[in-house]
């Protein structure tokens, strides 16, 4: 296959900034071993660590003494990172989720969200209790609910309540596929599908949702942090029940309330993530139960940039690696700091972007896929030969770029980083070319095998498990053996414990749909819910948000400064 030359590599600018004053294509350098002093953030850490130790009388951050018995970090260059496509250079430390408020808020906004049907409750009110439900009553109910949901009383006397300024991120909006019904909802309470989505996507979404009315509920960030994801449906159901009682003048103890509670807690509830098995020790709305299709629906880049499925996929990669690698596997399941750099390789320095857009050039020139105008019409039939052909070229190109630019190889210094990036560009390209998520996953696994054979190395031990048997499950859909990509998730058997994969898998699933012009990947309700501009985190621009977090410009929710002494 003829190789496509890209005149301007997207990562050159980043590498030149990172390795300032050096030839980025040179294979040698002088290791000056300047230590921690190279990094402003490490200098800050040392200063703060000393202050912490002094204040509490217990030793704290002390890298000069504690790292390798006196050999501190920074024996090589401690480089900065550009959060891809943002132009913002940050310290690696700023991309650890502990140090990045935007990352925390992205996960907070998912964990504190549930979607609840209003239809079941309305049927109970109308059919069982004979009450009238009109646009006026619905709007009044939403007023009451937005008072109650953060933790305010609506029925009883002498109640304690939560401070509105501590829970200002908590609210409820509704959405529907029925334009007439939408028109009757007060704009403050409506997620307006027509305004938020491109016309074609809006039509698809409205047709799928139909006349149903759904509530997008976001409980307070501070509550879901103190409790857990499973709290979201419980907290919301309690406030829903009380609000129905108040708004529709019900008896607080009548049996019909049980129907409303059942609808809110079970029958009409859409959680963001499934309950996990006991061995994972997590409830619903925790990252391990997220399906890849659902996650790709949460990320909204395809709504904002409908003509760039590659960018949409890359934003899912960034958000997904942050959530699944840094937070889920890196902290919930493992703990520590190492997982951050598995993830950041996929969304820094424009390297994955370069490799992916190479794939776009390839499918346009060779297969006439007009990827900038997403449509199901020009997708290539996902035969094994074609998947192999596209995947091989994209994977080899990525490997060759690492070979030609030793600083790129040094930037992605770990095999797991490179394995994820090489397989991600391959999977994304194959998914976008075919419009088929499983074909994308299949391309991912061929990339892994090529990588392993070409360089006689791959990632850490875990890659032996997942990526060398991945070919065999990538097209299987039988229970316990496989599944369509959209329905796989972080707890899919082979995927449950391996960093550097899950965010990319979610992106591959999404990319298959972005390239077809589909308005959603798995669930239109989740797509609409996260389009809401009132959310604290902007799900259409995860990388920009992470960059804002890194440079400390992102204002999160759930802050406690109101109730603690001033510092």
């Amino acid at each position, binding site marked *: 296959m003829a190789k496509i030359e890209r005149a301007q590599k997207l990562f050159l600018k980043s590498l030149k900034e990172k390795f300032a004053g050096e030839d980025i294509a040179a294979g040698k350098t002088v290791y000056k071993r300047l230590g921690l002093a190279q990094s402003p953030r490490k200098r800050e850490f040392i200063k703060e660590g000393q202050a912490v130790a002094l204040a509490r009388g217990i030793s704290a951050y002390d890298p000069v003494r504690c790292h390798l018995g006196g050999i501190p970090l920074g024996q090589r260059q401690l480089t900065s990172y550009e959060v891809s496509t943002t132009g913002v250079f940050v310290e690696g430390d700023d991309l650890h989720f502990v140090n990045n408020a935007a990352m925390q808020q992205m996960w907070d906004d998912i964990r504190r969200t549930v979607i609840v049907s209003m239809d079941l409750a309305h049927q109970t009110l109308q059919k069982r209790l004979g009450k009238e439900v009109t646009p006026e009553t619905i709007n009044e109910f939403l007023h009451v609910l937005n008072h109650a949901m953060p933790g305010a009383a609506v029925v009883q006397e002498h109640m304690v309540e939560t401070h509105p300024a501590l829970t200002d991120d908590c609210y409820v909006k509704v959405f529907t596929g029925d334009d007439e019904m939408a028109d009757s909802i007060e704009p403050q309470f409506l997620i307006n599908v027509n305004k938020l989505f491109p016309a074609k996507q809006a039509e698809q979404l409205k047709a799928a949702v139909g006349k149903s009315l759904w509530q997008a509920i976001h409980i307070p960030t501070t509550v879901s942090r103190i409790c857990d994801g499973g709290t979201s449906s419980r907290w919301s159901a309690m406030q829903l029940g009380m609000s129905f009682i108040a708004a529709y003048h019900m008896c607080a103890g009548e049996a019909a309330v049980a129907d409303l509670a059942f609808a809110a807690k079970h029958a009409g509830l859409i959680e963001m993530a499934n309950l996990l098995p006991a061995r994972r020790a997590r409830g619903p709305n925790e990252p391990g139960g997220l399906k890849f299709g659902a996650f790709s629906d949460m990320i909204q880049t395809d709504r904002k940039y409908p003509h760039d499925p590659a960018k949409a996929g890359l934003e899912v990669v960034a958000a997904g690696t942050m959530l699944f690698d840094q937070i889920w596997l890196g902290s919930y399941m493992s703990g520590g700091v190492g997982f951050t750099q598995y993830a950041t390789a996929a969304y820094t320095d424009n390297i994955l972007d370069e490799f992916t857009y190479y794939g776009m050039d390839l499918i346009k020139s060779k297969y006439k896929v007009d990827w900038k105008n997403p449509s199901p019409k020009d997708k290539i039939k996902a035969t094994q030969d074609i998947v192999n052909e596209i995947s091989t070229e994209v994977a080899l190109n990525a490997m060759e770029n690492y070979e030609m630019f*030793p600083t790129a190889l040094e930037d992605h210094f770990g095999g797991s980083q490179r394995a994820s990036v090489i397989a991600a560009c391959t999977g994304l390209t194959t998914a976008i070319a075919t419009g088929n998520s499983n074909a994308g996953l299949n391309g991912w696994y061929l990339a892994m095998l090529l990588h392993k054979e070409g360089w006689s190395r*791959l990632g850490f031990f875990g890659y032996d498990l997942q990526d060398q048997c991945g070919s065999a499950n*990538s097209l299987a859909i039988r229970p316990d053996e496989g599944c369509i990509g959209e329905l796989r998730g972080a707890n899919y058997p082979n995927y449950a414990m391996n960093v550097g994969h899950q965010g990319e898998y979610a992106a591959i699933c999404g990319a298959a749909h972005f390239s077809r012009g589909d308005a959603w990947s798995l669930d239109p309700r989740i797509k609409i819910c996260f389009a809401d501009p009132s959310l604290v985190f902007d799900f259409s621009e995860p990388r920009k948000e992470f960059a804002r977090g890194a440079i400390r410009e992102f204002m999160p929710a759930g802050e406690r400064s109101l109730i603690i002494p001033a510092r």
Partner: protein
Amino acid sequence: MAYKPQFGPGTTAVAENRRKFMNPGYKLQKIRDVTDEDVVLLMGHRAPGSAYPTAHPPLAEAGEPKCPIRKIVVPLDGAKAGDRVRYIQFTDSMWFAPCHPYLRSYLESWRYRGVDPGTLSGRQIVECRERDLEKVAKELVETELLDAARTGIRGATVHGHSLRLDENGMMFDMLQRRIFDVKSKTVKYVKNQIGEPLDKSIDLGKPMDDKWLKAHTTIYNMNGGTAFRDDKEYVEWVQRVHSLRTKYGFMPME
């Protein structure tokens, strides 16, 4: 017909080197002498000359149960004596080091009994009963599998396999376990594999030149070496493996 191992596909020198290294019928070229004592020092598990610490009593005294498998599988000397299982670990530079992690595991599996190789991207560990490990390690260190500059003996803090080389052509080592002696133009280990200072330096000789490295390397790298895409047979073999695995998973009855 007796099975004749092929050791892998490929038409390039890289593929041929891989086959050679795996093939136990091929005698690895010895390119340096390292004494038994120095091998022990480099690994740092015991003091040279000291007794082998044991993990269990000698098998002869252990009162093993009657078991046909135990009769078939002859224990290593170290297992017989009850030695601990210890390790040697290597870091191989992607800039044309002779050996690389998966190949190390493959060749160790072909060439040595009783070894437990572990493969990662930046390092490869092989574990074995201690006295047997020392024999394995000696061959791994003395032969063409190791270049003094591009191969590192590193138990921890292995960072460097993908980094640019330093001004002397040495692979980066955060701990500077080995140094390039400008006078002798040789590479000397001043710390053991875990980074503990040695009482004396151990000279592994001169780094091999680029010509030798590119003739002996087992990594595809288009930047001065062989591009993987140029080994069509190898790439097609990978595609075939992938296709067959895919098909089996999709429709195993075929």
